């Protein structure tokens, strides 16, 4: 029998049904996300795709590295030597840091204060970056002790906050996301607390509680630490513009983030 050459009511009906199923799937996903988990369908798709994608990515990186090695062998050798020297220095620094953090922890315990210093970190690899969704997928999950709302950092500062956790991976909502809010302080004397919201990949918005607070362009902004899961003092960025709205009596600052999200490949989850 020949196929119909025009659109039939059955086609329209199917289109509507598929769209309704799409809405239903979104609701199921939101319910699961509310519990800090990924829904079963999302987990299944990620499981089916992640492993072969990692293999393809590794192979492509291998080819890149091979050609880069051929072209830039002398400079890579020199760079490698310098990095080894820096690593040795960093190890010495880490020993001092561990000793100091241990001391801080002991002092906190003596004063009966909640401990924030010396928290454990797990290193994770960024397996996917979705700029439109302001999201990263990181290769550590429940098995490594990751739970929701933990801070995710790299050497430049705060990258984002863990939103959903699965067995061996987690989704991180970036600090630049408009749906992300983090307690932050501008480093002045005294420090100026406020609430930081993401806006764009290159701009965050810090709203201050004190509208008369002394602030200057260039001030550093760090996490406030007034949270059970995000420690204080993690660098976020620098103030690039200060706005004062006399009508609403509010004061806010635009902050340029330290982290270049598109270049992030490894991160730490602060447990």
């Amino acid at each position, binding site marked *: 029998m020949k196929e119909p050459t025009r659109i039939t009511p059955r086609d329209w009906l199917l289109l509507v049904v598929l769209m309704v199923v799409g809405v239903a799937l*979104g609701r199921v996903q939101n319910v699961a996300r509310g519990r800090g988990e990924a829904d079963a369908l999302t987990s299944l798709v990620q499981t089916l795709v992640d492993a072969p994608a990692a293999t393809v990515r590794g192979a492509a990186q291998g080819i890149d590295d091979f050609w880069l090695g051929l072209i830039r062998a002398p400079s890579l050798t020199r760079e490698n030597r310098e990095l080894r020297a820096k690593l040795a220095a960093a190890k010495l620094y880490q020993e001092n840091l561990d000793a100091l953090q241990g001391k801080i922890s002991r002092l906190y315990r003596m004063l009966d204060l909640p401990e924030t210093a010396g928290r454990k970190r797990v290193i994770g690899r960024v397996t996917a970056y979705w700029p439109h969704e302001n999201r990263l997928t990181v290769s550590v999950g429940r098995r490594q002790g990751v739970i929701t709302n933990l801070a995710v950092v790299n050497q430049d500062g705060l990258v984002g906050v863990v939103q959903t956790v699965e067995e061996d991976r987690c989704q991180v909502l970036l600090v630049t996301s408009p749906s992300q809010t983090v307690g932050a302080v501008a480093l002045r004397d005294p420090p100026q607390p406020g609430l930081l919201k993401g806006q764009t990949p290159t701009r965050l918005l810090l709203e201050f509680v004190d509208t008369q607070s002394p602030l200057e362009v260039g001030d550093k902004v760090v996490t406030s630490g007034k949270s059970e899961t995000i420690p204080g003092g993690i660098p976020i960025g620098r103030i690039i513009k200060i706005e004062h709205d006399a009508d609403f009596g509010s004061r806010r600052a635009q902050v340029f983030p330290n982290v270049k999200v598109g270049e992030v490949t490894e991160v730490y989850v602060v447990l």
Partner: protein
Amino acid sequence: MRGLPGLLVTLALVWLAAVLQQSMAQRLAVFGCEPNFLLAVMAPMALVSRPAVGGWIGFAAGLTQGALAGANLTHYVISRTVAGFLTSLGSLLDIRLAIGVAGLVCAACTLVAQVLFMFLAPPPGGSIVSYLLTSFGTSVYDALLAMPIYALIRRWFGPQTVA
């Protein structure tokens, strides 16, 4: 595309596109425009399918992409299902499209999907112009990718529409 072979080929191509999207899309970015492998595969498949099948292919592509991004599935599923459905209207013309024309249709399919997505989930910071420019770049990229895919699919499944 018809029957079990059509279904298997569809699933295999969507899976392959998802793997490439996850592993290679960022690496192949040119001036900030990345290819969207799922749309580049979805469009030529929809172009040789009946609207109902085109809708299903779009649904599968949207579901896969939304799940990989950990984003709201509704936005991806609706935008891709509608784009797949509209693209498959081309199959009702019952003519054998030239590869270049198929590429243009696939570019239009990418643009439609991305613009629908923009209405459902506006880009952060209201950067609509940059989103549209990036989407245009992606549609050009996808058109180039879709042309050989369309040629291959047409060879396998014939020029006729089929569901």
